[in-house]
């Protein structure tokens, strides 16, 4: 279902029979077949499950063929993938679930199977849903946050063991988390709040940030955050009212607002008015204005939103709209090895795959 001939982006919509809670590209094995991972929820049978599918790209009719499927104990709230350093055909999958646990799987892409490895026991881990997880670069540690205000570190070395980093006793809730360095991570939460954590310093977060630029209007929630591996001091956050802002730990009181609706001091050309569900740095959109790596400009970022927009936002530039749907786009993923390809999950039980020229 390509748009028009003048639009060189190829868009393919592939209806599924289930609701898609999250989706990720899996590492490539060859150039011709690629694999994707879906966290689905079948409402007819009320079963949440995890599926790997083979994606065969083709000009006219790309196809998705189911490869392996495994049912999950409850709905998946957050999904992360880490390539396995020794066996590239067996990536590691971490899935946070609604009932308060994190499950680890390994996918065997050659034999087409999905294997459950182990899970963190629900007792004492999180009470209530785990809202966000992130795997660190080498896939050895997984940080998890929840609405209950607990921050836990799961070490993948000892199976199922975890360490409590912090417990706010419900005074603060977290919605998302992202590693900044092997010892630092950032959590996002309510009131446009971001917390910077450093494992070398015990106790609470080392820096706090609260966005209050909405000029007395209602505040919002950070739904998703991202940190670029080459600029670990800057955290990019997306949330309510189409708000995207960058927070530099070196100047913690001055956030840079890239987009937002209804706020006073934001660029007028906002792409999105409603909640931004996910944000990721977009390595594919090259910025002509950022020539030296030390430039303080924020790199281009891709967002997806409740009002059905998938787009790219860049500081000081007109936002680019890649896809506009009549329903919400709940999540997306940029293929790390081939960043021209993006896929996103639509509220109406389908996924869209875009390949940019």
């Amino acid at each position, binding site marked *: 279902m390509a748009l028009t001939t003048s639009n060189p982006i190829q868009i393919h919509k592939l209806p599924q029979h289930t609701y898609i809670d999250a989706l990720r590209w899996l590492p490539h094995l060859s150039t011709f077949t690629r694999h994707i991972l879906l966290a689905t929820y079948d*409402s007819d049978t009320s079963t949440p499950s995890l599926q790997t599918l083979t994606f065969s790209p083709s000009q006219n009719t790309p196809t998705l063929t189911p490869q392996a499927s495994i049912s999950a104990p409850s709905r998946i709230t957050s999904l992360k993938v880490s390539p396995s350093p020794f066996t590239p055909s067996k990536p590691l999958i971490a899935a946070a679930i609604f009932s308060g646990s994190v499950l680890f799987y390994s996918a065997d892409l050659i034999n087409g199977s999905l294997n459950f490895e182990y899970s963190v026991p629900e007792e004492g881990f999180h009470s209530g849903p785990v809202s966000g997880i992130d795997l660190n670069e080498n896939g050895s540690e997984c940080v998890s946050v929840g*609405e209950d205000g607990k921050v836990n570190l799961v070490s993948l070395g000892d199976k199922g063991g975890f360490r409590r980093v912090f417990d706010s*006793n419900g005074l603060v809730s977290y919605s998302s988390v992202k590693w900044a360095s092997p010892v630092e991570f950032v959590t996002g939460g309510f009131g446009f709040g971001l917390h910077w954590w450093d494992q070398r310093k015990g106790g609470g977060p080392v820096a706090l940030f609260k966005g209050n630029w909405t000029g007395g209007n209602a*505040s919002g*929630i950070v739904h998703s955050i991202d940190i670029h591996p080459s600029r670990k001091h800057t955290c990019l956050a997306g949330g309510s009212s189409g708000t995207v802002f960058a927070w530099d730990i070196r100047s913690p009181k001055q956030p840079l607002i890239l987009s937002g609706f209804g706020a006073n001091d934001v660029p007028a050309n906002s792409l999105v008015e409603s909640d931004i569900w996910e944000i990721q740095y977009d390595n594919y959109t090259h910025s002509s204005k950022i020539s030296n790596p030390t430039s303080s400009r924020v790199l281009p970022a891709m967002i997806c939103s409740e009002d059905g927009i998938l787009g790219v936002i860049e500081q000081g530039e007109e936002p680019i709209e890649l896809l506009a749907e009549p329903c919400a786009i709940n999540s997306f993923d940029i293929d790390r090895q081939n960043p021209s390809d993006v896929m996103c999950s639509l509220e109406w039980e389908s996924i869209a795959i875009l390949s940019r020229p």
Partner: protein
Amino acid sequence: MPGVTLDSGEINSLAVVPHSSDAQSPRVYPLRHRLAPPLARISISWARGNSLRVSLLQSDDVVSEQNHGGEVVEVKLSNVEGGEISDAQWRRIAYGSVTPFALLQSQKNAIDTLRYEKDWWEHVMDFSKEINSLLGNSKSSVSPTIEDPKSVFKEVEQPSSLKAAWELMEIFYADKESQTWIPERLLDWLADFDCLFSGTQPTVHAKLVTFQKELVTIQAVENDPEYWEAMSAALAVGWLDVVVKLLRLHGSYLLDQLGSREIENGLVEAVAVLISQMPRLRPDLSAEKFGVCYKTKPEFMKAWEKWRAQITKLDCSAFWLQCDHQQTRSGLKNMLQVMLGNASSLSTVTYHWLELYISHFLYIRPFTVGLESMYSLAQKCMHLKPISSHHKLMGLIIGILEENTEVVLAECSRSFGPWMITHAIELLTAGSTQAEMLLHEQQSKIGGICIEELHRLTYAQILSSHALTWNIAPIYLTSCMKQGLGLLENLLYKQPVQHHQVLVKSIEICRLNGLDFVSYDMMKIAGVHYWKHGKKGLAVFWLQQARDEVRLNRIAKHLFDFVGKSLSDESFKQWEGMIELLGTESNTAGGLEFLKKYRDFRRSLQQVQEGITTDTAFKAAEALIALMRNPSTPQQFWLPLLHDSLKLLNWQERPLLNVSHTNLLLNKLQELSLARLRPGFVDAELPPEALKSVRLALATNLGRAILED
């Protein structure tokens, strides 16, 4: 009403069986549970949508540590119809129809500005085509590169009767362009959907499918009477391409026989040419179909007369006598009779009244226009071929032909469900003024709403009952003038607030529809929910969003009990996150604003402890006065605050508080002493001499301040 069967006490056979007055065999839904027999009680209630909640309770004496004594299971009742269309497909249709429906409604609202660009029916046609494309493709576009000569009839995926019904509505109500050639539209329609009738009665389609299967094994087709029967039948309903293809399979075309059967072959070919040149009263035909199209009646009339003359001429030709193959001769003659419109021939080669009806249009009355004459012809055909079994599409066609809007509505809603009726109403109102009046008239017996609104509301209710489609129901509800918004509020209030994503989506729907008060209410519900579940930060956030100062003040009272009241208390650190959350907007924090002031005071006091200048100490003293003066400062904090500030009260260089300030503090102390006598007062955990030392410090300060003045 569903009932439960318990036969012979065997627990594994426990199941729900719906009773129905129809003679259909009951459907059995097995219950999956892990309880050991015996069960003491079973209760059944409706859960969300079309699922039942079955509570299984055991008797008290089996309840133990491992055995909870009961279980609640949900039973999903599947489509009563058995399902030509699966639930997932229905949802896909529902999703896909949202955009065309919303677009049509907005065009309807902007009709005055659009009037000069396009006729209204053209907008409706765009809508109808969009919807039709959702219901599946009727023709398979991919054809094999090497065509099998014996494959005369392409087997395509069976279309749904829903699509057939939609196309019927489109032909008769929406498409004004094809009004002059409705018979030909019906012919195309029957070619696509005749297979739907095959299940309940013999049809031309079924005949051809059977013959197609036999064809592979037959040596000389022309000797088989089935061959001739199949061809006459296909010819009668106008599937000319099939007939021509079949004719060319005639044995006389074989190279080795061409010499000996020259005349026979000539006759076969003559008929094939005549068939392929049949005049058709329609603007165009697809490439693989046969016939010559004429757009205007006079042109068609001329061609038709000429064509008929050619057939008559062939019929009287002398060559027939020289044809020795008896089957070929009689078979071809019979086909000529069909083409000449011999009523009895048509009646024998067709199977049900619709096929006969089409053949009458083609060969006897090609100029039939107007529903009235079409209906009388239909009645005639039904008289010749009575309906043996009722088919839902037949009911719909008859309703349309007899121009009875009530029947059409009833058939749509009964046979094809609420989705169909909700969307088909758009076609009906565009096509007939009588229908429009009926549908838009306000009916007092259904609460003053019109029938159109009633059906939309029903459909929206069905959408609302499913967890994946509830968020498209607002599109339909907002198109309902009278009851829509009320039901939308209901729907939003019913959404579970514990799912954070659902809450955010609901609030977005409120924003789009200007229902701010509903979203504030939902935020309040969410706030209270999270407060109850110990997620204090989330509770404060949502209550702050809802600007609910009353509840914020109330929970503030509870929260302060947990706040460390002494400067030396390290646990105060954990409140930092919450204080950050409160932000700077003082108007929405309610009583919680105290927390922020208290934190600032603690900070300045800590600086004083570290021994810095009189200036900072003076500022700390000012903060203390501000805190003590503020009515939102809870009483249980008064004494700890003053006790922590002893250093300020006894400041060496000069008194930091003037007379009136000191008096204020003394009054507060007095008030506190009185309050302590009341029951229920919780004393701060302070050394017993705390009150005394504060009082002494204040008295000293007062003396010094008086001297200073």
